[in-house]
């Protein structure tokens, strides 16, 4: 096996891209990948524990933590009451003592009632204490529109939370990335918001057998192309790949970049690509106004001003509350049709 084991020493783990590992892989679901990452880290380090609603006896509302109670016991897999503000704050206090909590929000939509601890305490503790206390904690859960969950349960919180300095925001698009990024998140000394998608938890993908960690701030180029750079993260990366297939048949060659983390943001990879394609489209599931997609577009304009043949087009969820109707919800999302239209316009092929 070519996978390089980290030997468990935190100061010098080996970070490798899953595709460079070689060796055997298995096809597993997104939820299995996250569970493997959490379980491996919990075996390695007793300070890591998981808490959240229904994570233990219920096996996780979305079965992400299935079987973990049986392996680690109730002291480390902890069912909490429906009390996000309380248990998020409690997890932060535990992190200040030196533990490494993984705090699950069944949905990131529910994190809004815990806004004070996750935005006022976790990301600011290090700064306000003048470097005395950081907050090594992972908050994770489902983000973005699920399947017809309506407006209150469909938040894309990266649109809100990426505005706050002091947090790292990870939004994986495939099982292999989910595993490698989750392991990195757990070992990170800063607060990490790990955004999964209910719609992707059942997605299958090839995941290496051996241990690997994926560094933050390193984008993955999912598809090589020459005419337009599609930049995205999380679930919409999959829409971008679908769109790229369609557009290829029309003679438009798209390069698809999966940012994987939006804080930190891997601008060098984006810039390198845009300098080649001279065209960029940003696809972001959050609403357009004050969004990370808007930020990325601004940065592309700044760094690639002379390279661009057109302004940066952006595809977002529509600027309305998330509708319930399946038909309306599909139209509301940054779907394949909208991405294709944006690329055609950006490349003057509309």
């Amino acid at each position, binding site marked *: 096996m070519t996978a390089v084991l980290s030997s*468990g*020493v*935190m100061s*010098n*783990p080996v*970070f490798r891209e899953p595709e460079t590992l070689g060796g055997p892989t298995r096809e597993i679901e997104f939820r299995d990948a996250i569970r493997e990452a959490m379980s491996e880290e919990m075996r390695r*380090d*007793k*300070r890591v*524990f998981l808490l959240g609603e229904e994570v233990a006896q219920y096996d996780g509302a979305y079965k992400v933590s299935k079987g973990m109670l049986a392996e680690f016991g109730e*002291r*480390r897999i902890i069912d*909490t009451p429906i*009390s996000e*503000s*309380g*248990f*998020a*704050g*409690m*997890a*932060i*206090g*535990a*992190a*200040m*003592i*030196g*533990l*490494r909590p993984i705090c699950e929000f069944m949905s990131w939509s529910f994190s809004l009632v815990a806004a*004070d*601890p996750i935005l*006022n*305490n976790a990301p600011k*503790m*290090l*700064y*306000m*204490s*003048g*470097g*005395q*206390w*950081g907050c*090594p904690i992972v908050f994770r859960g489902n983000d973005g529109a699920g399947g017809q969950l309506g407006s209150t349960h469909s938040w894309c919180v990266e649109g809100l939370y990426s505005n706050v*300095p002091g947090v790292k925001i990870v939004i994986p698009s495939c099982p292999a990335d989910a595993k490698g990024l989750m392991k990195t998140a757990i070992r*990170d*000394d*800063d607060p990490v918001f790990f955004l999964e998608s209910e719609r992707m938890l059942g997605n299958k993908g090839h995941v290496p057998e051996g241990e690997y*960690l994926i*560094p*933050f*701030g390193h984008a993955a180029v999912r598809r090589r192309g020459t005419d337009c750079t599609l930049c995205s993260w999380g679930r919409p990366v999959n829409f971008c790949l679908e769109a790229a297939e369609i557009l290829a048949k029309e003679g438009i060659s798209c390069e698809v970049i999966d940012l994987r983390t939006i*804080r*930190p*943001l891997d*601008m*060098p990879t984006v810039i390198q690509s845009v300098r080649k394609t001279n065209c960029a489209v940003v696809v972001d599931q959050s609403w357009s106004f004050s969004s990370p997609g808007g*930020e990325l577009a601004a*940065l592309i304009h700044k760094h690639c001003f002379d390279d661009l043949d057109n302004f940066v087009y952006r595809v977002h969820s529509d600027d309305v509350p998330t509708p319930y109707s399946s038909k309306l919800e599909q139209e509301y999302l940054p779907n394949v049709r909208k991405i294709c239209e944006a690329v055609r316009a950006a490349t003057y092929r509309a």
Partner: protein
Amino acid sequence: MHLIREFEVRCMQSYQEKKIGGFCHVYIGQEAVAVGCTAAMKHEDPIVTAYRDHGHALARGMTSRACMAEMYGKVGGCAKGKGGSMHMFDRPNNLYGGHGIVGAQTPLGAGLAFGTKYEDEVINGGKNRRVTLAFLGDGAVNQGAFYEAMNLAGLFDLPVIFIVENNGYSMGTAIHRGTSMSHDLCIKGRAHGLKEATMDGMDVLAVYHDMHELAEWCRANSRPAFVDMKCYRYKGHSMSDPRKYRTREEEERHESNDPIGKYEQSLLAHGVITDETIKSIMASCREEVRDAIQFSNESPEPPMSDLYTDVFVEPWGRFPGSSQPDFTGGATNVCSFRATNGKEGLV
């Protein structure tokens, strides 16, 4: 208590001289609470409190210099001038902040207790040995986060004592105007199965004695408690409060029950100290605070580079060759913090 009183008096002067900015909440009148409570605890017991935090910091062992310089916004401050009056952090003394949002520190207090218990029992395989003190004002009793914290503490058997410093006012609102069942605050703790106690926060010996007994019970049983700590805030909520919501007569009545004066009288009556000793203690407190102000005046302003430090422990994560050009205008970091505290805690 003398030190805190003297410190806060000079703090008010410094505020009026505009040496201290922002919001500033002084502790005058409540000194017996912080002093009695911290004296009853072990140094390894974590403490977390709200924004009226100078008294807790000094009682816990923070130097007057570090506390005052923090308010002056100077590098000599406990947080290098990045926290300010409301956010006093002192890692060597296990003071986990000063927190500015009313009630927000209570879930953190539950978490500190969760953390120490987990460390002692799950990681070290022993028995819980630390008790956390989480201070809050009577105004914070009405915050939802506090009820969530009490529920979690009761549910998970967390060794935490929620000490409600009941000075009768949440800012300018008298407790009966903002809090139901204000004649019996302990009922709030009782609802969550917390051991309850009412204490006289104007009597430092009573606080010490009662808190010591309660803390040892919490330590032995690994259970939470709720304290209705009756006290009085002599000054306004903050420096900008003219106290129009209460009478001068009421203030004088409480001030005649002063915790410092009472303790002195008691010590004198028992022949423990003499007038001379008191005078010399007061003189040394004056000198310490005078020195703290001089230190704070002379301590340098933070360098501009400090603006960008302590945002992340490692902005690009922990891996070799990871440094990247900063395209987002975000922060670099050279902080001293390591979450592992030098120990990897591997199993």
